[in-house]
């Protein structure tokens, strides 16, 4: 594989990893606070639809972005009500919301645009434009790093850079702030937080809503950055891959970045069977590449590469009085 091809694939990796990364960080907040969320997919889908629809109607991608976050937040709120306030089964709530999202996005898009469940194609200011990083062109001449900077790092939409910045930010929030300390504690032992005089319910809602915002970014990126509009089921299981990445990352922010980059790279690789054939020398079936993130996750879950211990109080509602 020549360097140009590699760069192109890394470029694609970054693009494809971004929605995974945003969703993965989203799941990180919720699960670190003890609320398991297999509804990332549904929230992303909801955000993709609302952002694309509103961007198409208003012509402004920023209004669309807000709408996408709003749509995702709505679902996050329902998840919170079900699993925090009413102490329902968090997993079932997630499954249910994925169903609802899958259907309701098409219903709304069809009602608004009459295009078979798509939104109108976005153009101009209704889409996120690619940002060229400073000196991208002039630095291109620098050997190795220049093209890398210009091809891979430069030329993405703003949300890609936001996602990347969110990694250190999340790390800092979780491990360097009071909020992070409490958030991690509530996912490990909510009673410790409660007896320390901090509201478990409020903390968990905050975490779930942050999840909503980040899923909103992920969905909006899908529809207004990566693509130019919403199409039915357009997230195509990315919420589940993000979940897999979260486990792969053992619920740690920097590892989330690495895991999603790996999975993004696998997705990019699945687009280029020719490259694989050239490098490996055998024809690897595409479905095998598609399945690889899931297989890797199972391997991690099996404890074959270090044990992934989820937050101890995860998946359970906090019940004081039986």
């Amino acid at each position, binding site marked *: 594989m020549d360097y*140009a091809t590699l760069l192109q*694939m890394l*470029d*694609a990796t970054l693009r494809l990893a971004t929605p995974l990364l945003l969703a993965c960080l989203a799941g990180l907040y919720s699960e670190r606070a003890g609320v398991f969320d297999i509804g990332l997919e549904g929230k992303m889908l909801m955000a993709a639809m609302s952002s694309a629809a509103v961007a198409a109607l208003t012509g402004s991608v920023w209004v669309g972005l807000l709408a996408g976050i709003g749509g995702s937040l709505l679902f996050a709120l329902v998840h919170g009500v079900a699993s925090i306030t009413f102490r329902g089964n968090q997993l079932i709530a997630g499954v249910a919301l994925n169903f609802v999202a899958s259907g309701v996005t098409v219903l709304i898009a069809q009602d608004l645009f009459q295009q*078979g*469940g*798509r939104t109108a194609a976005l153009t101009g200011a209704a889409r996120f434009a690619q940002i060229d990083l400073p000196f991208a062109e002039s630095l291109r001449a620098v050997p190795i790093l220049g093209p890398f900077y210009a091809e891979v790092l430069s030329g993405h939409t703003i949300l890609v850079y936001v996602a990347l910045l969110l990694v250190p930010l999340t790390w800092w929030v979780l491990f360097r702030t009071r909020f992070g300390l409490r958030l991690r504690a509530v996912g490990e032992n909510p009673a410790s937080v409660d007896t320390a005089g901090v509201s478990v319910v409020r903390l968990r809602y905050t975490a779930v809503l942050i999840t909503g915002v980040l899923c909103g970014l992920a969905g909006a990126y899908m529809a207004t950055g*990566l*693509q130019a509009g919403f199409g*039915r089921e357009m997230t195509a299981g990315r919420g589940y891959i993000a979940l897999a990445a979260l486990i792969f990352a053992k619920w740690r922010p920097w590892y989330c970045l690495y895991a999603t980059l790996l999975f993004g790279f696998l997705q990019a690789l699945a687009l280029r069977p020719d490259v694989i054939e050239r490098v490996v020398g055998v024809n690897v079936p595409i479905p095998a590449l598609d399945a690889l993130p899931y297989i890797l996750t199972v391997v991690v879950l099996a404890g074959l590469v270090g044990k992934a211990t989820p937050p101890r109080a995860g998946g359970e509602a906090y019940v004081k009085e039986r």
Partner: protein
Amino acid sequence: DLGGKFDKSFNEAAFNGAKKWADETGGTFKELEMQSEAQREQALRRLAESGANPVVMTGFAFGDVLNQVAPDFPDTKFAIIDMVVDQPNVKSVVFTEDQGSYLVGMAAALASKTNTVGFIGGMDIPLIRRFGCGYAQGVKAVNPDATVILNMTGTTPAAWNDPVKGAELAKSQKSQGADVIYAAAGGTGVGVLQAAADEGILSIGVDSNQNGMHPGKVLTSMVKRVDVAVYNAFKEGTDLVPGINVLDLKGEGVGYAMDENNAALITAEMQATIDAAAEKIKSGELVVHDYMSDNTCPAATF
């Protein structure tokens, strides 16, 4: 087909044909969209049950199901596009996509500055290879040294509706030097055309005239008159003649699209070259190899 009615391409063309008929005759038609493979039979039966006649379906995937259903409704006429179904009450409409693709291939080669052009197919099936093969022949006819990069989106019907992958494939082809990309991929093509426009290279649409999707950035479109086929089927109504109906260049079943959106892209000189070839094909002087005739292609390897 699964790409969805508003794929701006294949299915939309079919819908437009039906609509034209309805507008002209005041007739009514029922349209059904499939959500899943397994739904086809139910939908087909329900339509025939309800007394619809004729029933027109678009896409090869109906072939197997139609083979099962058609005998149960001997009084109903069926028309299927892109597939041959041998039943006494079925009309099969097929197109010579190889010919149309040959012409746009020529256009691509004439427009390319890098001598590298791309092709992005939808689902990897012989039908789509026929597109790609015709295209490659057209390219080589103009410029025997040109490189044609061929990619398929996938192996399942999901490949008709994967704009993200379409866009990524287009970007990857661009990075390999392609500056004109032909998308024969249903809804996936939306992503291809979008990415090409974003990346500042040219694209070629398919089935419908897609020149207007990104004016000035779509070189041309390989039009396949699915609308005409549907229109005709409806117009014939219950008198639909069973058998195989081949719509070719000569019968204006396929062609390439010129309009104000791409007028600046295709010079008169280019157009003359292409038209000359078209004439030769019509007259039979030039034979474009059909991939599906022997599953080989002289100009490309899949």
